[in-house]
């Protein structure tokens, strides 16, 4: 018997998809430039079935690629030809809600937005809000340590998870709790990209819904003035709930798309939202308006009611599709930089845009320095995808050069393996491989993702020399 037959025999009918055509929707995640049809897609209903699946895969030495909703943007859920996709979409129940303790226990396939919807009646909500929140799963959020517009104030997924139940390749059910002593395994699982275990249950923290929120929108005559304004707001001791910036191209595209009244004469736009109690929001809005005026805002608008606030966000929220209308394809990058280097980095990206002859739009989380340059290209023009990828890699290199990181929220997946060789030296990569081996000595969980092999780093010529000790000193170098 082969692995598919064994899976079919052991699971309820309809749980295993092995028909090539039916597997097609699973051949990529949100990074559609990479595709691969898996051996089969397996859709378990419960933890027992997951344990059965893992035991079979282990027996047949078959890789397991866990998939939540497939909205990942780094190819983390990209299948392998000889592996199965373990789809968790059927495990989508909210197991319990405790309004007094302000917690909810969730199956991994619960969609992010469903949590907030389910607890709204208690005046609570789940804070991490990736833009993909209507589709992405809680399991995927934990695996990617996802963030959203609100993470400057409310943190990433890791800050909002209280316990995780995971299953390892040996089929052990392991509960990791924030109350555990010693090294913080709960923190380690956040952002582990499906390499350490399958997350089968998550307990999240819920927060009280703010009484009110208010948005201050300001136009600036230069990107650097806008970036300086961001610094001023934070220096004055205000932590906005959202602090987003758009460049001229994005403003124009978003306004044309959503028609919300963005200032078309501005070179850069800042959207600054505060939330909380009525008293605090009133004080903060006033202070922010003053700070932005002093920072040289050329236009300033404060939302006067909830409808206006929501409307003003529409441009920002639709900025990607709005920009996308100007080109057949676009590639969304993700890197983080120290805020003080914003103006410099945006200038350099502009230079690269000229070098590669590819247009770029910048819409990003200015509050935490998380950039999302959108590179516009046409996949039908031979070579343009390749040029786009080279351009993207240069942007990530730039982020590292100014002291930043190659991914703020989308993860490494298969997309940024080579950039990992820029960010980490050999000894750190060895530690990462050691950690993987502790959790999954079979190497069957999402192999080839997130952490590059040392061999790969050597091949891309990015192997770091640490303490002057050459790795593989016996090999000839050029």
């Amino acid at each position, binding site marked *: 018997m082969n692995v598919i037959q064994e899976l079919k025999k052991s699971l309820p009918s309809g749980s295993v998809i092995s028909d090539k055509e039916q597997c097609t929707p699973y051949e990529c995640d949100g990074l559609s430039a990479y595709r691969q049809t898996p051996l089969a897609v397996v859709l378990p209903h419960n933890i027992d079935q997951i344990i059965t699946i893992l035991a079979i895969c282990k027996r047949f030495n078959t890789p397991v690629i866990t998939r939540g909703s497939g909205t990942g943007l780094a190819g983390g859920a990209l299948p392998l030809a000889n592996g199965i996709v373990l789809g968790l979409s059927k495990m989508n129940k909210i197991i319990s809600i405790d309004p*007094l303790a302000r917690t909810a226990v969730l199956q991994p396939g619960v969609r992010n937005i469903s949590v907030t919807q389910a607890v709204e009646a208690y005046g609570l909500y789940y804070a991490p809000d990736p833009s993909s929140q209507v589709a992405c799963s809680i399991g995927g959020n934990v695996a990617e340590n996802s963030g959203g517009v609100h993470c400057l104030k409310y943190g990433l997924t890791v800050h909002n998870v209280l316990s995780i139940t995971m299953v390892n390749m040996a089929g052990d059910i392991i509960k990791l709790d924030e109350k555990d002593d010693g090294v913080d395994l709960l923190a380690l699982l956040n952002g582990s990209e499906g390499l350490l275990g399958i997350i089968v249950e998550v307990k999240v923290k819920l927060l009280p819904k703010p009484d009110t929120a208010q948005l201050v929108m300001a136009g600036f005559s230069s990107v650097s003035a806008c970036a300086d304004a961001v610094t001023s707001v934070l220096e004055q001791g205000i932590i906005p709930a959202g602090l987003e910036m758009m460049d001229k191209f994005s403003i124009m595209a978003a306004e044309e798309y959503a028609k919300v009244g963005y200032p078309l004469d501005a070179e850069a736009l800042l959207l600054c939202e505060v939330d909380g109690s009525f008293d605090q929001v009133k004080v903060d809005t006033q202070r922010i308006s003053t700070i932005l005026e002093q920072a040289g805002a050329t236009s300033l608008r404060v939302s006067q009611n909830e409808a206006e606030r929501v409307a003003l966000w529409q441009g920002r929220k639709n900025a990607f599709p709005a920009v996308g209308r100007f080109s057949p394809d676009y590639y969304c990058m993700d890197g983080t930089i120290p805020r003080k280097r914003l103006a410099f980095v945006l200038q350099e990206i502009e230079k690269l845009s000229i070098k590669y002859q590819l247009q770029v739009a910048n819409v990003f989380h200015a509050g935490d320095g998380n950039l999302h340059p959108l590179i516009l290209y046409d996949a039908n023009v031979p070579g343009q995808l390749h040029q786009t990828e080279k351009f993207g890699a240069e942007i990530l290199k730039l982020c590292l050069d100014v002291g930043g990181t190659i991914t*703020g929220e989308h993860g490494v997946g298969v997309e940024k393996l080579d950039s990992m060789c820029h960010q980490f030296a050999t000894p750190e990569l060895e530690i990462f491989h050691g950690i993987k081996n502790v959790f999954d000595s079979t190497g069957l969980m999402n192999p080839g993702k997130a952490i590059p092999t040392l061999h790969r780093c050597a091949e891309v010529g990015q192997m770091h020399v640490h303490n002057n000790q050459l790795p593989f000193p016996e090999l000839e170098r050029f």
Partner: protein
Amino acid sequence: MSEPWINQICDQVKQAAFEQRTVQIAGNHTKVPLENGFEEVSLTQNVSATGIVDYEPSELVVTVKAGTLLADLKAELAQHKQMLGFEPPEYGGSTIGGTYACALTGPSRPFRGVLRDFVLGAKIIDGRGQPLAFGGKMIKNVAGYDVSRMLAGSKGSMAVITELSLKVLPLVEEVTYCKAIPESDAIVLMNKMAGTTLPLSGCAYYEGLFYYRVFGEHPKQTDVTACTNDIWLTLNPFKPKLQAHQKLWRVDTEGPAPSIPNTLAVGMCGQRRWVVSEDAPAEYSTLWQSYFSPRHNDTSPIANIKAGLKNVFDPSNVFKTL
């Protein structure tokens, strides 16, 4: 190239590994007295191991050497109207490295988060004597496994922490109110209040009084008395006077869980109970007199994972195993 003090510690660790000796990493010895027989890797005996490396208030990030005294770090931040969000307890001379290694958080925990929530990056020396760097100075960074948050709580068993990058918060003005109510009512009330938009930064029950701390703009509080903020120093760190035979336990529990007999104090929306009892009063109980001995027994898969990780970071067992 690394700084000389880093190289010194690397050499010390390598030598210990070579000689198959165990070393004890020490901050400023504010914990249990050092056990005899272990060579010390000291952070504070070396002035180069203290001080702020990089601090940009507008980035909300501070990078600090591990031997820096907590008090010095807090004073520097306060000068720029900023603070450590995890409100670490001060034992009089604690270092930031030791504080991180112990991963202890003060009363603001349910509202602002635990210590590791503020960790952005760490530089360490592993048991092979290799200097390593994980994480960074970015508020958002998901490249590679999150080793810098994972090592919070490692209590000197995995690696020497040499430098930390931490997220900081604006310093806020806080006021405390209190009133007399029964303990069980107070536990429910703390949780109810935490579900509202009142800007809470602490709540506790101690000696018959329910205390809560509020920051920033907030509605006028009724039926309560305004009191000083000193209560939070009494509770953090909590050092009650005990009879010689009494054992003090720290219990981490679900916030609204019912009262536990012989409770001296309740903190953090009920998530922290201080109990005097002969035996462990609940699942997540820590015998506080011997904080550095293992706590609740890990079940076997978790124990195996921890042992495996210890082996990854410290294959020769140079650092004292917990």
